[in-house]
């Protein structure tokens, strides 16, 4: 519980963060930028869980634990994604998302 900050404000913030992440994902041309956007989205959810737990269901632990796992998985995901991006870079010579549209139709 943070004084002077209501749950609505936090949720509005996280929602904004989520959509910024989403927007980033669809507009970035750089794969790493896109990955960062995804991280943004995941982080917004992590905050979400913590805040909801704290504000609405103070007696419980689930939300907090959930956000911990989200962080862990986000890290794993980033690692994997970066590895694959590296591979893409090796094959295409760039990390531009426009380069990865050979498979289509």
């Amino acid at each position: 519980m943070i004084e002077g900050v209501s749950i609505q404000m936090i949720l509005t913030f996280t929602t904004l963060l989520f959509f910024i992440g989403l927007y980033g994902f669809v507009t970035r041309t750089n794969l790493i930028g896109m990955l960062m956007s995804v991280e943004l989205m995941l982080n917004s959810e992590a905050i979400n869980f913590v805040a909801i737990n704290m504000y609405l269901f103070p007696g419980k632990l689930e939300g907090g634990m959930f956000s911990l796992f989200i962080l862990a998985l986000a890290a794993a995901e980033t690692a994997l994604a970066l590895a694959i991006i590296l591979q893409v870079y090796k094959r295409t010579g760039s990390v531009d998302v426009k380069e990865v549209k050979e498979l289509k139709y």
Partner: protein
Amino acid sequence: MSWEQLFSFMQNEILIVLAILILMMADIFTGKEKKHYIIHLANFLFVVVFLAGLNVLDKEGTLFGGSFKTYPLVAFFKSTLMAGVLLIMLQSVTWIKKELIPHGFVSEFYILMWSSLLGLFYMISSGDFLMFYLGLELSAMPVAGLAAFEFYRRRSSEAAIKMVMLAAVSSAIMLFGISLIYATSGSIYFDQIQMASEVPLLELVGFVMLLSGIAFKISLVPFHFWTADVYEGAPTVISNYLSVISKAAAVYILMILLFITLRRYEETWTVALYILAVLTMFVGNLFALRQQNMKRFLAFSSVAQAGFILLGVIGGNVLGIKTVIYFLLIYIFSNVAAFGVVHMIAMHSGKENIKDYEGLYRTNPRLSLLLMLALFSLAGIPPVAGFFGKFFLYSTAASKGFYILVFIAVVNVTISLYYYLLPVRAAFLRRSENPIPHFKSDIYSKIGFIILALGLILIGIYSPLYEYIARLSEIL
């Protein structure tokens, strides 16, 4: 929660972890020239895990305060998935020998695939959203790695990046939905969410986001776009795995969520599933119609199949569960067989296009026959198993009075029959100047193919199997 309970309820998962560990150790101690022994070991280990899994089919109970549940149906389903993975593993031997051993890795493939399977197991056994989420991610990430396995091919990397990025976005969106559900219900346990009485708008939004996340995995339209690209780019074995195992598991958890946790919204999700089913069938079929690449073709076919599966889900009760699980079993056999043949041909001749299959029957009659059986099963033509599966799906939808949906589905079957007949036409009807030459599959593949062929013919006709599933499904 005693140790005995832990070991018996979670036996499959624990054994898989053990198998993974054994394989890791073995990998360390085998030299570069002896890597192919790993293959035998891995197959042996998995057979052991599978057979051991048959022992715990009747266990029922919960672990970790309801996070992990097991009951006969899910145990059976896990065995089914393991059978599917085993069949895929049998097929992958050729690939491993040809593509992986030269690059020095073998066990990695098995480890990643088993990890993914482990994730799926946790996902379908989950009793809360946390376990569900963990399982989902655990199942998705290794596959993305597997998709990138043929790292020397550009397409493999492209498939992997598409998979990992889109999966990340999808799980992010789903997670946001889960957080909203958590916000309104105050719990992440499926059972407790079910209790809540009022339906706030926020929860609906959350629910839709959750649904879309699962839909992504099942590849329902419009969440399916990754499917074809990934299937085409990834190694065939991985496409095979994605198209059957991970999809089947996702369908299972979707049903559990819908039927137990979200029973309250039945009317609403019925409408949603209706629309998704129609869209999925049409889009999947219309895209599959003009594909030339067999893998891409099967990708869209499996999108369309997902639409048919929804026909059973929409039945929304025991009927739905049993028909869908029965169908999934058949679907696993059919699709694994189809992908298996495609894989085998690609391995031996490097050809993946329908046109290349011309005259196949005259050089490789048995493989062609298996391909035909598999495709007919996918299309739903008796006496092959697929017909029975599909028929029960239709019946389920019809039992709720969705005759128009059934009609749309059967119209789609007709469309799908057209494209399923295209490879058959190429293989049987046409002759070619330079057909794919005759080749011999290795023993593993042969065993796999024989099991598949028998399964395709017998699963449908042999009704006790269906009755067994039906009995297990009385969990609601």
